[in-house]
């Protein structure tokens, strides 16, 4: 078979499996550190297992390993299928897979050793940071090279989202990564003090905007229509959604630095842009959900569609909650409390996790030449276990967060604090236990997915997916 006449499913399959494996690892570490918060003795006084070192490993494993492997898999799949060409370069695509795995393994080794730049979501030290840059450039070449040689004139909207995510991550990573190496495993940021904080959260919030939002919206606009067998509710709105996000997202970062040394006007600009973001976010959510109009009954029987649609409802919740929390008066209550953790996880578990799981469930049978997953009932079980897990997690952290905020600001008539800090910690204990249970359920769901994936793929069948001759409508 002439390989130019078929799609490159090999790299998609590799990233699909990597997504499932890293998902289980990242969530396991999450459950471990959740347990440590409830029962601190669980770090066993071993430095490598302390919360401060495992927490960045958890965030790196779920965002950069589970999350980005999922984006690699889906973007490589979608760009090929919608452009009706094979990936630009098989060798470069293979390099992105093995290069990215090397980045992730380096993270697993260096973070527990305490090697870190100390920047949230940008912890990896300079040698790994440079490797990320190289792999990312290769990713961009493969993705945009495929777009350039496309056989379909129109660029499908999902590719716009994937393309923006790839370009934005390159820009953010380079600006925030600027620094001076001191030794092999130690470097210093090019910025200092509040300047560093501003650059960090310009990076941090745009990583949320362009990886955790734009990237996964690429999945929304391809996998929901495909799984529901309905076109996007409004294709025009999807294009508007894209450009509105691109023009407004860059400016919201300062809301992470309310009431700090950052100038007041900068904080206010960040807040205003965060509020504006509500409009395109909800437009996109409604557009995705209404794709099911006339086909709502499919939600009853199709667990993959349940994952995809429920993820959008979490997207809607998080993108409402986020702008609300960016209002300075609300932020004075919510900041530094577990409310932030609740917000992040309604986005991470509910939105990013579910849309990735749904899309990966869509890909697994197609990557292994099967009609469907080994057990669709297990997918259904996964959905319910994970949903209950998310609800327990975010509800307990919401309550804990508001409680902490109220306890910290409570003052007696004479002006002294009503509660000591440790009283707030003590009051949080039951909620940490509930959060641990929610996380454990979510992890169990992921393990079910791993088992189902193994059963579906274990015969190791390779799929030779031929590129169809052009449909008449494309000519």
């Amino acid at each position, binding site marked *: 078979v002439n390989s130019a006449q078929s799609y490159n499913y090999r790299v998609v399959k590799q990233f699909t499996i990597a997504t499932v494996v890293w998902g289980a690892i990242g969530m396991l570490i999450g459950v471990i550190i959740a347990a440590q918060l409830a029962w601190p003795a669980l770090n066993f006084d071993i430095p490598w297992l302390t919360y401060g070192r495992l927490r960045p490993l958890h965030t790196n494993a779920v965002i950069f390993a589970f999350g980005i492997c999922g984006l690699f898999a889906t973007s490589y799949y979608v760009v090929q*299928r*919608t452009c*009706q060409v094979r990936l630009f370069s098989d060798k470069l695509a293979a390099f992105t897979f093995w290069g990215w795995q090397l980045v992730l393994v380096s993270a697993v080794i260096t973070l527990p050793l305490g090697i870190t730049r100390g920047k949230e979501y940008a912890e990896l030290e300079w040698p790994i940071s440079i490797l990320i840059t190289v792999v990312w450039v290769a990713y961009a070449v493969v993705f945009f090279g495929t777009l350039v040689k496309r056989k*379909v004139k*129109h*660029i*499908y*909207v999902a590719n716009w989202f994937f393309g923006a995510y790839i370009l934005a991550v390159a*820009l953010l990573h380079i*600006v925030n990564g600027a620094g001076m190496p001191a030794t092999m495993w130690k470097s210093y940021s090019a*910025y200092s003090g*509040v*300047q*560093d904080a*501003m*650059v960090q959260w*310009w990076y941090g919030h745009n990583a949320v905007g362009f990886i955790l939002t734009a990237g996964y919206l690429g999945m929304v606009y*391809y996998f929901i*229509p*495909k799984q529901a*067998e*309905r*076109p*996007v509710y409004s*294709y*025009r709105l*999807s*294009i508007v959604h894209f*450009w509105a996000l*691109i*023009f407004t997202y*860059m*400016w919201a970062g300062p809301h992470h630095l309310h009431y700090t040394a*950052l*100038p007041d006007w*900068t904080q206010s600009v960040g807040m205003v842009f965060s509020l504006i973001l509500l409009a395109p976010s909800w437009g996109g959510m409604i557009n995705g959900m209404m794709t099911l109009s006339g086909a709502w009954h499919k939600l009853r029987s199709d667990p993959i569609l349940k994952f995809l649609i429920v993820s959008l409802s979490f997207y809607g919740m998080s993108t409402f909650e986020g702008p609300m929390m960016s209002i300075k008066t609300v932020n004075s209550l919510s900041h530094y409390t577990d409310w932030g953790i609740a917000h992040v996880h309604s986005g991470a578990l509910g939105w990013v996790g579910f849309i990735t799981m749904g899309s990966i469930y869509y890909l697994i*049978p*197609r*990557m*292994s*030449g*099967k*009609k*469907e997953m080994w057990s669709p009932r297990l997918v259904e079980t996964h959905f319910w276990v994970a949903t209950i897990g998310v609800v327990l997690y975010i509800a307990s952290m919401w309550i804990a967060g508001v409680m902490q905020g109220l306890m910290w600001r409570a003052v007696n008539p004479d002006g002294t604090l009503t509660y000591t800090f440790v009283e707030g910690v003590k009051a949080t204990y039951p909620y940490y236990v509930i959060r641990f249970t929610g996380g454990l359920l979510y992890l169990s769901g992921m393990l079910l997915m791993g088992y189902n994936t193994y059963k579906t793929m274990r015969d190791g*069948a390779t*799929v*030779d*997916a*031929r590129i*169809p*001759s052009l*449909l008449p*409508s*494309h000519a």
Partner: protein
Amino acid sequence: MEALYLLIPLSVLTVFVALWVFFKMSDSGQFDDMVGPGLRVLQDDDRAGPNPASPAEDKSDKSIQV
């Protein structure tokens, strides 16, 4: 706030690049058809396996060989 002398120009530049891409793509006709592309992805039958039954489609030239 020297950091803003870097971040604001960068962000403004990004917006202008995005505007340029938008108008260039708009002029080249990318956004002329706002209905067809949504339907066309559905015509691409990407199902694998022995029985990708879909009554509405002609599978003769675009089904997947496994």
